């Protein structure tokens, strides 16, 4: 190089042009551009510095919830009805996915090849989450992985950022489908629930009781959530545990339900359905209100709610079955109680004194024509010409004409329950409510328990409004009180209400609150809380209840309920056959079949109520109830 030296004069540089002298503009540009940067940094680091510092913290500190072990549920004998099962799920947190589309595709492809999740699915769901700016939230790509799948995923996820195995608490209901309606199920929070639950300290991914006992005893079963705050890097790797609070497991429940009895009754009802679509039975203690069996047929597998993704079709089939409504708890669903209501009419009439135990009526014809105040001729039917019967006979043989008389006073010189027909209806309603009808029993399961209807003149005026009703449809007629007296008209009740009412008659006037949970057990198995019988006293003289019990005993021993009789068992009961729906071509209407009773007569241990949506009480419900009594006495009673 030095060959050119200072004397080098390249020929291609012809002239030594004078350089320009003013470079201030350049110096200005330097100062200006760096000035811009300084201004920007003042804004970012000094003015908004605190803000960014906070964001930096949040960037890498991740709080992880430690979900508590949910309490278990046991049957009366201690048999477990539910198990906690971890549900393995493949999840993607979009935030942690690699930036490059190629790398993401590799992960999606792995999901497709190993777990059968289509690539397109993954792509759309990730894109959706990112669009809704929820990139930090895990998306469940596939739930209910098998153990093998979970292991493969656990191993593979280490070099696939964003993809991970998540274990969500789930439930295995092992008590059989018979318990589905009582136990209910747990499930993920809905958007509406989430808001409320967050205030109670629930984690977003924490399942919550949705129905039945799972829902009603949520607070006992849930336990207390724990958490750990962890520091993690941009790839989601855990670096440091900053703080941990362990979760407290939930309390367990012991039900009053008997495992074998519940299953036996469920099978029995299923087998006895015949042309009926649905059936229900309640077996309960008239002493404590404990429910031994609460069965609704048809039932379903509540494990289905734990795996809704996979069993969607099955769920849709259940939810859209308008014929049988399998998801509905029939034991808590209202329908016309028919002649079982006559027990209430009897109690009301004895109490009001318009009849006495010895008041007799000669039923000579099955039809009693009666001209109402609106000029309409009402044919009042009885199911047979009973001849002379007293109250006990009327209960035993379920005479309609006798209870028309007891309620509205027809054939008794118009001497009904009250001074006029409206008052009679109101008085009858009062006794019905006193015996637990017309409002929910308060049983401790969340199943949409229906209150049932006890009509009244006021009720009829209120309900019968609208363009489809004439003004005269809103009036309360004499015949309305008569029909109400035999559990028709608009009266409805649930099998559980009828069972409870029967229990009150059986135990001498204690209207018990039914319950299915006997004890709450701590995580160590010790009893934390026990349920005590709760009741209100029915305003009916025990002597009058005794008379009614005698009628019920006669019903089973010789009357309409005789098919419930079991050798060696002193059973008392009442049948019911309630007409419902429109008149058919043969002039008849469909009928619900009821039987409600208790045993043994002298010291009632158990109340059994059976309901079929189609059938005659004495023929269909009574024999089933008899078998349940038999099973209870042989297998359950201590």
């Amino acid at each position, binding site marked *: 190089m030095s060959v050119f030296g200072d004397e*080098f004069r390249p020929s*291609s540089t012809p002239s030594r042009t004078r350089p*320009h002298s003013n470079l201030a503009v350049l110096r200005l540009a330097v100062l200006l551009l760096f000035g811009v940067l300084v201004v920007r940094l003042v804004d970012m680091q000094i003015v908004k*510095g605190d803000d960014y*510092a906070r*964001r930096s913290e949040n960037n890498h500190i991740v709080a992880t919830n430690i979900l508590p072990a949910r309490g278990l549920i046991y049957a009366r004998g201690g048999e477990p009805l539910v198990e906690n099962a971890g549900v393995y799920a493949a999840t993607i947190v979009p935030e942690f*996915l690699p*930036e490059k589309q190629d790398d993401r595709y590799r992960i999606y492809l792995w999901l497709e090849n190993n777990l059968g999740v289509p690539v397109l699915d993954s792509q759309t769901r990730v894109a959706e989450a990112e669009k809704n700016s929820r990139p930090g939230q895990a998306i469940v790509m596939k739930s209910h992985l098998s153990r093998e799948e979970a292991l493969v995923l656990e191993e593979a996820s280490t070099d696939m950022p964003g993809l991970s195995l998540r274990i969500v608490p789930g439930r295995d209901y092992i008590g059989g489908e018979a318990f589905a309606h009582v136990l209910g199920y747990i499930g993920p929070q809905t958007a509406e629930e989430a808001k409320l639950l967050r205030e109670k300290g629930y984690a977003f991914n924490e399942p919550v009781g949705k129905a039945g006992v799972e829902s009603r005893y949520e607070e006992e079963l849930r336990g207390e959530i724990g958490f750990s705050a962890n520091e993690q890097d941009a790839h989601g790797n855990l670096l440091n545990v900053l703080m941990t609070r362990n979760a407290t497991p939930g309390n367990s429940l012991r039900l009053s339900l008997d495992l074998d009895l519940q299953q036996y009754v469920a099978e029995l009802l299923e087998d006895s359905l015949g042309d009926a679509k649905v059936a229900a039975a309640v077996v309960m203690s008239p002493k404590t209100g404990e429910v031994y069996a609460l069965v609704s047929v048809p039932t379903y597998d509540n494990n289905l709610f734990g795996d809704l993704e996979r069993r969607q079709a099955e769920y849709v089939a259940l939810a859209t079955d308008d014929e049988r409504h399998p998801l509905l708890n029939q034991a808590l669903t209202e329908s016309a109680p028919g002649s079982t209501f006559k027990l209430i009419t009897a109690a009301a009439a004895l109490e009001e004194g318009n009849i006495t135990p010895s008041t007799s009526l000669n039923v000579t014809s099955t039809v009693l024509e009666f001209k109402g105040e609106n000029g309409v001729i009402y044919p009042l039917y009885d199911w047979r010409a009973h001849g002379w019967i007293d109250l006990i006979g009327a209960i035993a043989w379920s005479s309609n004409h006798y209870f028309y008389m007891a309620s509205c006073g027809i054939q008794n010189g118009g001497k009904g329950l009250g001074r006029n027909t409206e008052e009679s209806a109101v008085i009858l309603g009062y006794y019905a409510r006193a015996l637990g009808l017309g409002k929910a029993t308060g049983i401790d399961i969340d199943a949409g328990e229906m209150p049932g209807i006890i009509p009244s003149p006021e009720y009829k005026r209120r309900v019968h409004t609208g363009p489809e009703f004439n003004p005269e449809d809103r009036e309360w007629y004499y015949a309305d009180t008569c029909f109400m007296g035999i559990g028709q008209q608009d009266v409805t009740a649930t099998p559980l209400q009828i069972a409870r009412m029967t229990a009150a008659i059986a135990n001498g006037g204690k209207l018990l609150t039914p319950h299915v949970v006997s004890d709450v057990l701590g995580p160590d198995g010790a009893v934390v809380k026990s349920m005590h019988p709760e009741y209100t006293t029915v305003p009916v003289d025990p002597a009058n209840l005794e008379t009614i019990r005698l009628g019920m005993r006669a019903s089973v021993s010789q009357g309409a309920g005789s098919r419930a009789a079991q050798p060696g068992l002193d059973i008392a009961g009442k049948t019911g056959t309630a007409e419902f729906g429109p008149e058919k071509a043969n002039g008849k209407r469909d009928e619900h079949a009821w039987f409600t009773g208790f045993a043994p007569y002298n010291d009632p241990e158990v109340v059994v109520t059976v309901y079929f949506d189609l059938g005659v009480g004495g023929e269909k419900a009574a024999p089933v109830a008899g078998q349940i009594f038999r099973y209870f006495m042989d297998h359950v009673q201590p």
Partner: protein
Amino acid sequence: MTFGYAARPRTFAFRGWDRFDYLLLVTSAMLVVYGLVLIHSASSTTFDGPLTSFANPVARQALFAIISLGIMFTISQLDYHYLTHYAWLLYGIGILALIAVLLFGNEEYGSTRWFDLGIIQVQPSEFAKLATILLLARYFSEHGGDARELRALVMSLIIVVPAALLVFIEPDLGTSVVFGAIWLGVVIIAGVNRGHLLVLGAAFFAVLPFAWTFALDDYQVERISVLVNPDESPLDAGYNVIQSQIAVGSGQIFGKGLMNGEQTQLRYLKVPTKDFIFSVLGEELGFAGALALFLLFIVLLMRIIRAAQIAGDAAGQLIAVGVAMLILMQAFINIAVNVSIFPVTGIPLPFLSQGGSSLMSMFIALGIVQSIIIRHRAYRQT
């Protein structure tokens, strides 16, 4: 001013040491050391081998720096007229290299900018920038050192545009902006007619909307719009913007301390030793550290502008101006990206970012500037 030229022994291998700009040398060396410290901090999570290993990014960068310094001294000995003499040839090679890299280069982060030569990655645009500066200086010095003539101005555009376009296709938006800035700086100092510049400027802004629609790739449009609202796509294009914002902003006045920046150490920043090295600085050394950096750059640039001031001829002056614009714009764009006032584009921070190619080209440029200083006007007048 008198210089001891006559007294200087001619046998001394390194000539012009008395005129050599040591402040310029020291400033550039301090910037490199600053960079080494930051690379050390930013790479500590990904590299935990010994400091002396060649695989250690700090050691590599230090080695490149030493080589680059040697090249700088060598070039400072070379009369820059020798370089302007071959400017057309160098420029031609530069353009060919840019075409070649498009055809055969390695793709990284969606952009084809590199040749992988095994031990070192070469970025032809670094070389092309210097060649373009040399050619512009040569051209204007041959034409009265002057850009007053419209013809000369258009000719200078014809020199810059092909290189800028080729870089734009790679795509490397930032570097094409650097090309434009170099051109602008050179023609302004070369005395461009303001009217001409206004017309050209107007034409440029008239074409801009079409460029937005047709010439800019989706990713570029996205990066620009992300700048306006990074939270809209926090994971894709917005990720770097948000993470660098958080890093710089959370540094506050004095920073979190070296090796203590969570954003850096927990790897929330992408390429923290290269394009986002300023975010590391901002987070760990804070506003104070940034000011120190700015001061170093300003001193460096002022020394280069001084070189332009005292240059012996128009060619020397315009080269110095070009180099000043090159370093100024690279530094500005890189930092502007880091503080989210410029769309994300892969421009290294001169002297600091990890990468031998960039470091070497910077010191070559400084070597040329030193050559201009050694042969400055006062000296020539003696």
